[in-house]
């Protein structure tokens, strides 16, 4: 059996490990346009911050490919899939054939059309190791940095470079920071915390025009900057599938076995859509845990095993300057709020189920909430009052506790 | 120093037995020769013999062999005998002056039968009546000691080496179909004739080599059934146990051996169902008569002989056969010295009773 995996990040690793659970001998070939040993993308901000280094950023050990008996073709981009011939054509015109193919191409930064953007000299996106390296080179202690986008990427970038630059201004069109994961109130808590680090936010505002080192804003202000970081959003890399008429919406469409609409072609990770069980909708969930589990699911199924991945939910754990927050699910339904000093918590309850939550501050045992969402545990079966006040196994029935603690081995 | 009966004295010993299954009567010479071979197993402080079939002319009478310290006790005892028995014959037991035998008491023999009136009055069966009379003499009449009380059998014992005792009692002049002999090695005693072996009650005689650990448990149990252990010896208590189980309870010798040298529970548990039930019953019902600690005994009885070892076989015991003759002894040499060419010789296992009887059963 010949497996070809396009992409070399989390979903690819998940797939390799998934394949090897079933098939120890089949030939695995990994193709990636990045020349690096697999590394963790989210760590690039920590790299700049100095909390990690390139060595420790490696997502798997140096001997990973060897141990997994994997062939790698790094620094080469897959240009086209010849579905009918079961071939992949690379940018050097070499052709490799496959029995099973995985598309794990991830996503790439989305840069909206902006007037005068070409006049900006030092402009960067913040997605890959190369992005981080390039950005770092452009920074100096006096740098005035402008970040477009107050989402996860923009703010992690801000945290990562804060100590290396003079000033940081973050501009976002939305009315709050981290609008994809936080509600209004929560965002305020986090924003004021970040502002203590001397980072300026300009919200509900967009850049109307760039003039070299000056940005003109929709509120009429002007901002001078030395370095521009564009962190508006990401877009799944779907072209390989789209070109051969595989089914694609915003991301590649896959079923619960991570199969695309094309035979023997699987897809996993940020390039795909997943079925979000909290909203009952297909959506792109560009999250690392999600990428791994999809990859692993795809790998197992490619190797002839049977694995279903049907518990995708949006979830994030992130911290800025020492303030941690965890969020999961969708923010729809009745709200239970706990807002004490140093602790902000909201639970979203609908149809007798926990649908989502936001916790800022003390995030201990939050996984118990996550599992309530993932397992769709009816809240009527547990001590609702207790679970609202704090995540604990105590809230479950004695029998359920016994199952959980008496030897149950968790799967997904 | 306390004498036998006032204190318990452990002792080591030699034993030997000869039995003719055809009932052929043989003289005492062979048994003396046999026991003499094991001279080193005794220390001169006791020897004795039991012989069966030696009084054919008086076979229907109880033959009482009695030691007296002196004439006063003799008189008292004879008065007692006359009150309870019809004395058919009485005489001194013939002896020969022997250098090894000293401090000779008066030794008398009586052939008796219970007075019918006394027997009726007592409402006891005859043997029980006789046994009780013997106990009474031995416990109540100072200086008198009945050391043999069976029919057509006799015990001959003294302080000295057994071969000297045989010579002293002129045993070559007696003829019997069954002989047992004993040489004693007590660890301390001034030596008392009554303490020598065999120990006998009615037809039962026991010679024993060993020192049982269960002594006091057995003694206190058997004394509950009307026995009085006056000598504090193993032999005495074993004799009473055998008498009790056989004569009073009605167990046969094989069943008795299952009581006194009972198989271990782990052995019983592996037996076939019926056997297991029997052995379990016997062990449970007569638990306090289990004898533990080393012993090898020869039990003489009317028409037969039984050899039995403790269940761990902590004392030696060999059995040999030649034609109709059966030999049992502490050591094989004691058999070989009187019969070179044995048909068969073996060492019975611990707790395995070897029982021989006259052809055609006991008389």
């Amino acid at each position, binding site marked *: 059996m010949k497996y070809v995996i396009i992409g070399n990040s989390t979903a690819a690793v998940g797939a390799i490990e998934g394949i090897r659970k079933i098939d120890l001998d089949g030939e695995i070939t990994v193709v990636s346009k990045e020349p690096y040993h697999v590394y963790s993308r989210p760590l690039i901000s920590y790299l700049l911050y100095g909390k990690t280094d390139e060595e420790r950023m490696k997502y798997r050990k140096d001997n990973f490919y060897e141990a997994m008996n994997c062939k790698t073709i790094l620094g080469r981009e897959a240009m086209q899939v010849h579905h009918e011939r079961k071939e992949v054509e690379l940018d050097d015109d070499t052709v490799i054939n496959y029995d099973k193919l995985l598309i794990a191409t991830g996503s790439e930064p989305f840069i909206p059309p902006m007037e005068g953007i070409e006049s900006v000299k030092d402009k960067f996106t913040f997605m890959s190791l190369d992005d981080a390296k390039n950005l770092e080179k452009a920074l100096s202690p006096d740098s005035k940095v402008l970040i477009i986008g107050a989402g996860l990427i923009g703010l992690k970038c801000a945290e990562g470079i804060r100590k290396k630059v003079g000033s940081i201004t973050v501009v976002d069109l939305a009315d709050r920071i981290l609008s994809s994961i936080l509600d209004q109130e929560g965002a305020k808590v986090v924003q004021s915390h970040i502002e203590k680090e001397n980072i300026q936010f300009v919200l509900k505002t967009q850049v109307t025009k760039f003039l070299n080192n000056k940005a003109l804003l929709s509120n009429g202000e002007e901002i001078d900057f030395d370095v521009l970081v564009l962190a508006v959003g990401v877009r799944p890399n779907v072209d390989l599938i789209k070109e051969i008429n595989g089914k694609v919406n915003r991301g590649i469409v896959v079923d619960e076995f991570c199969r695309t609409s094309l035979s023997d072609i699987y897809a996993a990770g940020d390039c795909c859509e997943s079925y979000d069980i909290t909203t009952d909708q297909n959506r792109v969930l560009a999250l690392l845990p999600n990428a791994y589990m999809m990859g692993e699911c795809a790998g197992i199924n490619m190797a002839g095993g049977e694995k279903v991945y049907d518990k995708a939910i949006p979830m994030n754990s992130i911290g800025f300057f020492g303030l941690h927050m965890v969020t999961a699910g969708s923010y729809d339904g009745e709200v239970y709020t706990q807002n004490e000093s140093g602790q902000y918590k909201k639970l979203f309850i609908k149809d007798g189920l926990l649908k989502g939550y936001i916790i800022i501050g003390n995030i201990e045992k939050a996984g118990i909430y996550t599992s309530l969402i993932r397992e769709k545990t009816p809240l009527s079966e547990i001590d609702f009052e207790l679970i609202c006040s704090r995540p604990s196994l105590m809230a479950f029935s004695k029998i359920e506790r016994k199952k959980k603690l008496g030897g149950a081995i968790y799967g997904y | 120093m306390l004498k036998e009966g006032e204190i318990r004295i452990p002792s080591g010993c030699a034993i030997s037995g000869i039995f003719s299954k055809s009932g052929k009567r043989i003289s005492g010479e062979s048994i003396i020769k046999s026991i003499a071979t094991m001279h080193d197993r005794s220390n001169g402080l006791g020897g004795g013999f039991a012989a069966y079939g030696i009084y054919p002319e008086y076979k229907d009478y109880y033959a009482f062999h009695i030691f007296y310290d002196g004439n006063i006790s003799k008189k008292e005892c004879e008065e007692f005998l006359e009150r309870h028995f019809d004395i058919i014959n009485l005489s001194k037991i013939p002896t020969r002056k022997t250098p090894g035998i000293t401090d000779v008491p008066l030794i008398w023999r009586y052939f008796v039968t219970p007075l019918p009136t006394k027997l009726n009055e007592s409402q006891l069966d005859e043997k029980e009546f006789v046994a009780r009379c013997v106990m009474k003499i031995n416990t109540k009449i100072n200086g008198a000691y009945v050391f043999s009380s069976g029919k057509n059998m006799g015990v001959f014992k003294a302080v000295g080496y057994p071969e000297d005792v045989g010579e002293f009692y002129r045993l070559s002049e007696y003829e019997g179909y069954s002989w047992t002999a004993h040489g004693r090695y007590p660890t301390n005693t001034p030596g008392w004739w009554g303490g020598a072996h065999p120990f006998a009650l009615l037809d039962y005689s026991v010679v024993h080599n060993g020192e049982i*650990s269960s002594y006091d448990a057995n003694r*206190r149990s058997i004394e*509950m059934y009307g026995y009085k252990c006056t000598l504090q010896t193993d032999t005495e208590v074993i004799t009473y146990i055998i008498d009790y189980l056989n004569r009073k309870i009605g167990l046969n010798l094989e069943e008795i051996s299952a009581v006194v040298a009972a198989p271990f529970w782990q052995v019983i548990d592996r037996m076939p169902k019926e056997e297991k039930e029997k052995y379990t*019953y016997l062990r449970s019902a007569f638990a*306090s008569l289990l004898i*533990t*600690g080393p012993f090898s005994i020869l039990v003489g009885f009317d028409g037969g002989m039984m050899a039995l070892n403790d269940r761990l076989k902590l004392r030696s015991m060999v059995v040999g056969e030649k034609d109709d003759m059966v030999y049992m002894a502490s050591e094989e040499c004691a058999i070989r010295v009187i019969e070179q060419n044995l048909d068969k010789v073996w060492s019975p296992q611990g707790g395995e009773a070897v029982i021989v009887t006259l052809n055609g059963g006991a008389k």
Partner: protein
Amino acid sequence: MGINYLYPEYEVVRNMDRCINCRVCERQCANEVHSFDEERKIMCSDDALCVNCHRCVSLCPTRALKIVKTDHTFKENANWSGRAITEIYKQAESGGVLLSSMGNPNNYPVYFDKILINASQVTNPSIDPLREPMETKVFLGSKPKKIERDKDGKLINNLSAGVELAMPIMFSAMSYGSISYNAHESLARAAQEAGILYNTGEGGLHKDFYQYGSNTIVQVASGRFGVHKDYLEAGAAIEIKMGQGAKPGIGGHLPGAKIVGDISKTRMVPEGSDAISPAPHHDIYSIEDLRQLVYSLKEATDYKKPVIVKIAAVHNVAAIASGIARSGADIIAIDGFRGGTGAAPTRIRDNVGIPIELALASVDQRLRDEGIRDNVSIVIGGSIRNSGDIVKAIALGADAVYIGTAALIALGCHLCRSCHLGKCNWGIATQRPELVKRLNPNVGYQRLVNLVRAWNHEIKEMMGGMGINSIESLKGNRLMLRGLGLNEKELQILGIKHGGE
């Protein structure tokens, strides 16, 4: 509140260098001795509340705690001991009867400690229990007086119903109520595992424990709590409790507060009402009445269960035993004055009854003298502390022993003698769920099994030393014993010689 005349008997000593404020002492003390001073960030103790049960000492992970007897003293003398004075203060304060738990603590002679065991040398070999079978299995019950044979001459089993024990040890009566569910479960499971019996005591048998019936003695006491047909049939033997060594002549009283939930159900007593065991059985005012009860119980159980009659060791115990041995009972249990209790009036506990050693010796001899020793087995209890005591008891004439206090100690009891307070920190003598929980029967039963197995090993060693390889040859084998420092009368009653004789 007037003057407090009493100074705490014990002091809690805390090594502040080792205390890490983990507060386990505070959490584990039901007497609330320990507390945490939030202000000073240190643990404190109130000595006056301490009963010296060692729960905190045992659990303290850094061994920062110990309990010492106070050296504070009264101006006492040989007559007016500190205890005598204290008791007067207590009674002057309360006007009540003093209550205590566990056995007689006073300095009366312990005869077991004045008796020594024999061993073989030279003339008789000792037996190595590691190499040779060494039998400690015991059958309890009456022995037949004669044998019977069928028409083929085969022996008929005419033994009356009895019980078989893998070793001569049983757990003595401790009721569910006086001790906890978990303590009972531990005893029941240990009895099953070790092949011996435990005893329900007078509190009935919890439905959960019917499964251990073949290792259970069901007790019928004067209160008749929890007695019904299924109960009688559930056990391997039935015990009529006439008396208890710790409180001869006294009944029992389990306060209504303890008659809750399962205890109420098991005892068949309404929740909250006191369970009072009368001093006598009100249907037994004489020996012939006892005989009637023995046979009533046998009739009720189709003569399939041996009946035990348990009495306290009192002055005329031998005569009483003789009567019982002729009453149809199969086993006599005699409880000496050191036997334990969950609660007894202090004066009774400390002044009534006789030592079990003397009672046993006189009963065994009396029954032998009367030729009725085989009618019954004798089981004794009342402070059997180790296997040496057992060997001595059997050599004096017992068939088996009951252990109660020793079993509780194995379960963790530290003999703080505060059972009557119901706050046992070891989960034994309490019904408070959070305390009961502290005795994990999985651990408890194993500890009991360990104890009796260890003792059984030791019994075998001692038997082997004597050259005895079966326990029945030890029973009543008083020549294996010698007394030390006993007077003629004591030796005579015990039926043993003095050392050196």
